[in-house]
């Protein structure tokens, strides 16, 4: 590692002053589980780390006016232990539970997972499903951006120099909806996502699908909702044949974005299967 300075921020105000100080090239540090690995591999393009992991405003999990407020420095373990998040967004909790190891979950943060923007980041599909909004702050002011638009590709985001993700917000899913997350890795624990899917859905009083959001993870360079599949499912009666077709359409939509790659033969079949399973789990109460 090269010469690198460290300073701890005690508040968001403090953090953005430090990040915006032009005499340094600063970078926010939260859990460090990605940053410290990168620091070993390459000479950092920054010369100061601003530690935001103890900023109390960034550790909040709360509900305000029908919106969930999730601090960017909340760790995966804190998500898993949150009664509120277990009740409202169980698929997001499930995704966090699938991250790394206990050690990684105890330190890694949601803000870091989004900002690092790995294509396989486990929190992304459910955050994108929820239309989660990232709140960014810098000396220039505040702005908000959908997580699906903030992350523009593998390890690429629109976060600007001096900017900090302070928190995320998303609307509480409708009471009739259920959610499900499935991840495929190469082993049972501490595995990197090969492919995943996050789905939320619900039916109206006639039993027809009136709420559906579907987002595959590690399938496309940009983690996005598959609106064409959602539109196909809306207003239809939940049944297995429908979900087989939805799985096929999801895989086709992925290939339309990525083209044929070395992994397509595998991902085509696997994405169909997990899409179908997730939809069956939500609408037909089938375990997966």
């Amino acid at each position, binding site marked *: *590692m*090269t*010469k*690198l*300075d*460290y300073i*701890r921020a005690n508040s968001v105000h403090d953090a953005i002053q430090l990040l915006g100080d032009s005499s340094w090239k600063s970078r926010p*540090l939260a*859990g*460090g*589980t990605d940053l*410290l*690995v990168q*620091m*070993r591999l390459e000479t950092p393009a920054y010369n100061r*780390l601003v*530690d935001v*992991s103890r900023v109390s405003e960034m550790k909040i999990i709360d509900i305000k006016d029908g919106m969930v407020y999730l601090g960017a420095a909340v760790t995966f*373990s804190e998500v898993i232990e949150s009664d509120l998040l277990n009740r409202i967004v169980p698929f997001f909790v499930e995704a966090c539970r699938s991250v*790394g*190891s*206990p*050690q*990684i979950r*105890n*330190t890694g943060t949601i803000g870091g997972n989004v900002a690092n923007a790995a294509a396989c980041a486990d929190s992304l599909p459910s955050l994108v499903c929820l239309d989660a909004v990232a709140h960014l702050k810098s000396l220039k002011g505040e702005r908000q951006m959908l997580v699906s638009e903030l992350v523009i590709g593998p390890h690429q985001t629109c976060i600007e120099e001096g900017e900090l993700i302070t928190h995320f917000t998303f609307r509480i899913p409708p009471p009739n909806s259920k959610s499900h997350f499935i991840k495929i890795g190469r082993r049972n*624990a*501490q595995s990197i996502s090969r492919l995943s899917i996050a789905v939320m859905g619900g039916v109206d009083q006639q039993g027809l699908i009136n709420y559906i959001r579907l987002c595959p993870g590690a399938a496309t360079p940009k983690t996005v909702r598959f609106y064409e599949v959602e539109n196909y499912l809306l207003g239809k009666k939940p049944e297995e044949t429908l979900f087989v077709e939805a799985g096929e359409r999801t895989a086709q939509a992925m290939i339309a974005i990525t083209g044929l790659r070395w992994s397509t033969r595998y991902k085509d079949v696997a994405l169909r299967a997990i899409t179908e399973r997730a939809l069956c789990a939500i609408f037909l109460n089938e375990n997966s």
Partner: protein
Amino acid sequence: MKINFILNHQPVSVDVPPDTTLLKMLRNYLGITGPKEGCSVGECGACSVLLDGLLVDSCLVLAPQVEGREVVTIEGIRSSDGGPNDLQKNFIKYGAVQCGICIPGMVLAGEALLAKTLHPSREEIRNALTGNLCRCTGYQQIVDAIEATALERSLITEQQKG
């Protein structure tokens, strides 16, 4: 940069460059060699320590991040007479130690679990060890040792309740 923290129940103060990892500070500046450097990328868990009671990989924590906090390494796990505690004795009894390099991390992962529950299923024990790799034992004996300790500690707790 001066770092003040509690190491194995004792306050310490040490001067390290700010980009030092917690692991390096413990091993190279404080002579605490229980945490091992295995993979250095947070996969193997040989460098595991307890930070404010939570299991973390000390290779992925920056030394200044522990300022004012409490760190427990394997050196801080012992019985009141200074010898091995019940969990460590069970590691020996159940043959859970072969080459030994993963064991400091394994014991701390066990302690982190037992601090949360004294009634873990084998599945829960296995989950608690997912961040600690062992290439000798095949894990069964380690799971056995933690399971036996959980049972012993829960019996003691029940007896104390009367």
